[in-house]
């Protein structure tokens, strides 16, 4: 890579920032085209995302989901695997969380239940990632194809279970029963209430802390363990990894399982936290957004936290925008989100040569001046 020509702060700081600005610039044109003021739109998005307590709560609640799925994509990406199946892994992981909670919630409060719920969710998510991983490692089926197919299988399986098995008898909508109050994760409102601070109600719950813990764990795993070293080595050069004695097949399977388990933690935030039950489509695209988050965050936990916050703000600010400005429909909000993903993900390296040239010019001039 040409990393040597650019200092890190430009590569991970300036370039993503320029990309976001470009995306907003293009979005601004689109908003202008439909006859609304782009400045007003930006204002609504920012106030919606950060302007008041409830908005911040929603932003951070979305952020929590994106951190989990972003980490899931990043871990797999370090091994050169493109895990598109975060959506399905999160969905099935939530099933594991839900089943565990439903079987134990009558005699356990949340703090006793959470280790079991995490274990069950992780096991389900990992199991869902295991099959594509095994097929990739031992049979050569490409993981991109298989994981995306597994999203559809997950969706069909969940509908079957929710419509036929888990549905609350007599209920209109396909969803499981609501968990016992004591088993649902405390919301941030409750947490702050303990300290005597009253904040607005939102789905934000203590799963955010779990997300931050996961960030630290992923960082430790990737850069401070032998397994992490193997994962990154496979990503850099698989042949070299084989030559140096790494069992690449086994490592690929383990990596994917870790990835699936991380995605499954969305289930903790949603099933055990915000929704308090298993319901249809609660993942709502977080698995796919995780790909953009990871790309934008350069597959590093710190970058992922920042990128998740940006996407959380986009989700919540976007909802606020379409609420306040009726002519900006939710479809246009998807366009704006899509442009950000396009510029930060797919086109992330588009402006790099230009920046490099500019930097070299500036740098070379300074060099000469110094001489």
């Amino acid at each position: 890579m040409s990393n040597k020509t650019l200092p890190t702060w430009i590569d991970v700081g300036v370039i993503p920032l320029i990309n976001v600005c470009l995306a907003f610039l293009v979005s601004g044109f689109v908003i202008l085209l439909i006859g609304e003021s782009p400045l007003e739109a930006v204002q609504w998005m920012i106030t919606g995302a950060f302007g008041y307590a409830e908005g911040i709560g929603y932003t951070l609640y979305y952020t929590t989901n994106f951190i989990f799925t972003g980490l899931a994509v990043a871990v797999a990406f370090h091994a050169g695997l493109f895990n598109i199946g975060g959506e399905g892994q999160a969905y099935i992981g939530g099933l594991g969380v839900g089943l565990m909670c439903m079987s134990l919630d009558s005699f356990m409060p949340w703090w006793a239940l959470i280790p079991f719920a995490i274990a069950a969710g992780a096991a389900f998510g990992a199991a869902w990632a295991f099959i594509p991983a095994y097929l990739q490692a031992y049979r050569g089926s490409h993981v991109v194809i298989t994981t995306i197919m597994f999203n559809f299988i997950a969706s069909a399986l969940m509908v079957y279970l929710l419509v036929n098995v888990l549905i609350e008898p007599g209920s209109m909508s396909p969803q499981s029963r609501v968990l016992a109050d004591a088993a649902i994760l405390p919301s941030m409102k409750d947490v702050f209430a303990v300290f005597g601070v009253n904040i607005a109600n939102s789905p934000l719950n203590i799963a955010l802390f779990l997300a931050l813990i996961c960030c630290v764990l992923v960082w430790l795993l990737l850069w401070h363990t032998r397994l992490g070293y193997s994962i990154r080595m496979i990503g850099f050069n698989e042949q070299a990894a084989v030559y140096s004695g790494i069992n690449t097949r086994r490592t690929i399977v383990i990596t994917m399982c870790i990835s699936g388990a991380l995605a499954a933690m969305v289930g903790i935030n949603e099933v055990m936290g915000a929704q308090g039950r298993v319901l249809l489509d609660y993942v709502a695209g977080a698995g796919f957004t995780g790909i953009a988050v990871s790309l934008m965050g350069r597959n590093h936990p710190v970058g992922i936290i920042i990128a998740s916050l940006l996407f959380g703000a986009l989700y919540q600010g976007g909802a606020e925008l379409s609420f306040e400005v009726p002519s900006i429909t939710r479809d246009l909000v998807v366009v704006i989100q899509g442009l950000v993903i396009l510029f930060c993900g797919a086109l992330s390296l588009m402006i790099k040569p230009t920046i490099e040239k500019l930097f070299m010019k500036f740098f070379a001039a300074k060099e000469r001046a110094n001489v």
Partner: protein
Amino acid sequence: MKRQLLMLTAAVAFASSAVAVELKPAVVFDMGGKFDKSFNQGVYEGVERFKKETGIKYREFEVTNPSQREQAIRKMAQREANPVLAIGFAQATALEKVAKDFPETKFSIIDAVVSMPNVQSIVFKEHEGSFLVGMLAAMKSQTKAVGFVGGMDIPLIRRFNCGYAQGAKYAVSDVNVISNMTGSTPSAWNDPVKGGELARSQFDRGADVVFAAAGGTGVGVYQAAKDAGKYAIGVDSNQNHMHPGTMLTSMTKQVGVAAYNAFKGVKEGSWQAGVNVLGLAEGGVAWADDEHNKDLITADMKAAVEKAQADIISGKIVVHDYMSNNECPSL
């Protein structure tokens, strides 16, 4: 005491007149979006009609993920919108939470029951309307086989399917009912290509009338029926005009009227909390009979359906509701 009472009456009168002056209705559409050519769109047309007739603007929001339901309803209530209309069974849980926090606000919900003193629940007996179109389908069929294409596989659609099968078997006892669901994700509401494929496969299996309860997917079903020279039955809105000669009838569900009435009721002070079940008797569901399909419906068919309709209303025929026990004896 008397004076207090008088003041109270005055206060109530003042409060209600204030409501009448600045009526701020709001509607929260569900994930299908207001242009889904079906359920949400029916509501949209109803509230648009209200806007046109009264000149009162309404606030609206289309949710894109499950957590936005509560957020949107709560926000509408915070902005002092009244009444707030929630669309779809999926919003029931969210509405329950919000209605508790805003006891002064009037809420209406379509397709679900929320038992609260300030919530009006509007539900339809889709199985009754489906029963009638099932009868028509069976009587029209030459092959003694009729098809059903559902949208997303959820209990509500199975209720349509079950009513349809019962009606078909009531009219022609040995009719074969072939049922398919388009899919298991919300995209199944808008997949005309797959709808067309399912319809064609049902024709290959012998069906010659197909009922689509599948939102936008139905468009593909009707087209396939037209191409194959078979008959199709529309849903929710009257879709007879889409392919005259192919559309046998439509099972209409008056969601637009329900939405319109919810707003209008608050405006005129006739709004009442409680459950509003709209079946055949209430005109909430019906089979569409208009100039586009009059050549397809024979006098015998019409007489039989009208008799069944009267029997259902009088209680002589009881159409089994799939959602009462999640089972369908006729399938």
